[in-house]
């Protein structure tokens, strides 16, 4: 053992706030998902998925592009690496490319990260080959553009304008550039479908696009398009987890509704004054529910 020239002052920093609750919750969610997958595999066809309008529009959007002989634009977001979000985006794009390959519709798949670009290129080539039309694959249709945010946005906007795209699909991580792309595509009259994991950008896409996949609909897309029992089962597991969290929210709602309202002590008033917060002499502040917090504090910490 190498000699350590430091002294540990506190261990388990990440567990100090919530104790074992964090681990238990994560294990429970993972358990739900695996159990959902297990059940769906055992009873294939038992799980159905509701209609997602944005994904139903893929064929229509590609069809319109085919009729007008204009390209379909795809942007797999600005992920900083080839992460799960980018893989999910590329899975959806594979389905779009398949439809485009069948109808010989030109595509433009513009990438922000070189790793995503490398995989996107292989996927596009693979899809054209499996559809039996490898000669229709244009190697320049899948491009790396730039790994600078606004240079990328400028290039996408320029492509939209110059190529007059008929349909645009934005899937993945998007930030401030989302509106630049979506508004430019709107100006050339393209059908737009968007899905982003950055919830701060969702309102912008809702304002500018025709269809938006909200929240986890983005992750449900591969299950929706493929209808594989494994993928559907994991959705069911995630839904159980959501129900559990809703249960937690209801319990928290009740607990907080019964929290005691009491006048501030002199000590508390002084604390707020020291912090620069104005305090009225007879002001009452809600204080935390002692029963709930005593119970929480008894959970063993890391």
């Amino acid at each position, binding site marked *: 053992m190498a000699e*350590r*020239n*430091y*002294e*540990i*002052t*506190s*261990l*388990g*920093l*990440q567990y100090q706030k919530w104790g074992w609750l964090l*681990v238990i919750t994560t294990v429970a*969610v*993972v358990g739900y*998902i*695996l159990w959902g*997958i297990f059940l769906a595999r055992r009873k294939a066809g038992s799980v159905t998925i509701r209609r997602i309008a944005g994904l139903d529009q893929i064929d229509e959007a590609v069809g319109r592009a085919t009729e007008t002989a204009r390209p379909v634009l795809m942007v797999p977001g600005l992920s900083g690496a080839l992460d*799960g979000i980018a*893989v*999910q985006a590329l*899975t959806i794009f*594979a389905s779009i490319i398949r439809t485009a390959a069948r109808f010989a519709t030109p595509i433009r798949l513009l990438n922000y*990260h*070189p*790793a995503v*670009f*490398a*995989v996107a*290129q292989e996927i596009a080539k693979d*899809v054209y080959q499996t559809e039996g039309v490898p000669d229709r694959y244009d190697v*320049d249709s899948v*491009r790396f553009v730039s*790994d*600078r945010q*606004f*240079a990328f*946005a*400028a290039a996408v906007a*320029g492509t939209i304008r110059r190529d007059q795209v008929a349909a645009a699909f934005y899937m993945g991580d998007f930030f401030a550039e989302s*509106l*630049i792309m*979506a*508004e430019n595509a709107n100006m050339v009259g393209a059908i737009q479908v968007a899905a982003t*994991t950055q*919830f701060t950008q969702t309102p*912008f896409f*809702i*304002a*500018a696009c025709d269809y938006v996949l909200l*929240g*986890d609909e983005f*992750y*449900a897309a591969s299950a929706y398009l493929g209808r594989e029992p*494994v*993928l559907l089962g*994991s*959705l069911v*597991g*995630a839904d159980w*987890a959501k129900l559990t969290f809703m249960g937690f929210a209801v319990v928290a709602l009740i607990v907080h509704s019964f929290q005691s309202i009491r006048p501030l002590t002199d000590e508390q008033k002084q604390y707020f004054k020291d912090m620069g917060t104005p305090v009225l002499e007879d002001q009452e502040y809600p204080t935390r529910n002692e029963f709930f917090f005593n119970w929480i504090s008894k959970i063993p910490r890391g």
Partner: protein
Amino acid sequence: MEILIARWTVARTDANLWQVVSYAGAATLVSAVLMFLLSRIPSNFRRPLVGIFIFVAGLIWILDWALPKAAVRRASGESNPITPLPFWPFEYNLVMDKVIQASQVLSGVLLGLGVLSILRVHVKKLTKRQQDWPFSLVLLVSMAAMIVIGLGEWVASNREAAGMPGNHELVKTAFSVVFNDMLQILDAAMFSLIAFFILSAAYRAFRIRSVEATIMMAVALIVLLGFIPLAMAVTAGLPVEGFASNFRIENMKTWILLNMSTPALRAIDLGLGLGLLAMALRIMLGLEKGVAVD
């Protein structure tokens, strides 16, 4: 192991430039051999092998999240948290440093592929005099200038830091001009366009076409007015406390943001988190289907 890691961590100065080059060359050679061996593996073994690799790669990050982190006190005064391993002679955060560096190296190699893509598209456009070819010329010239000046600045900075003679100011000024005075400004110009796009998108979204659009417009209007001092002055006559204070525009705005907007965004975020977790599990366990993972 600590010694091994320390030996592999080479400071980038001119003094050990050849050492860096030799390490990089050796690493490239080893990677090429590994890739060659991987390509020779029968395809029915390739998928399980890649699956194991993905599982281990995911496990590294899960352990980083789960292993208890420690606050430490050092004689030197540094207090960065570490992840000690009781059964191993080094900390887990050192492993993470190496993993992050390896992924950065991989990204660097893949960036070469990206640059090749850019060159292929734009050189073809230029040589065949396709439509808008002058834009391609501008792009290629700008890219070449940025690479040359950026590398020059890196060398000049290193030489200056090592106390080596030479006029380093010229190249540093050139870098400042192309990076700070041109690229950053162009970035800012693109960013400023968003203000106009917000206006045009908001105009379309808030047109009163349906009940939902009307409600959205009314709510958006309250939130907008709640941030404007002149609008706040209109309801300033209402009392600060009591029931009537709820109708002060700034209180209505705060209520909407805290009790309607924030919970909705948190619900979307929760769904996204669960969806990502489910997908990560499927990928790690080799259950994910689709051309992207096959």
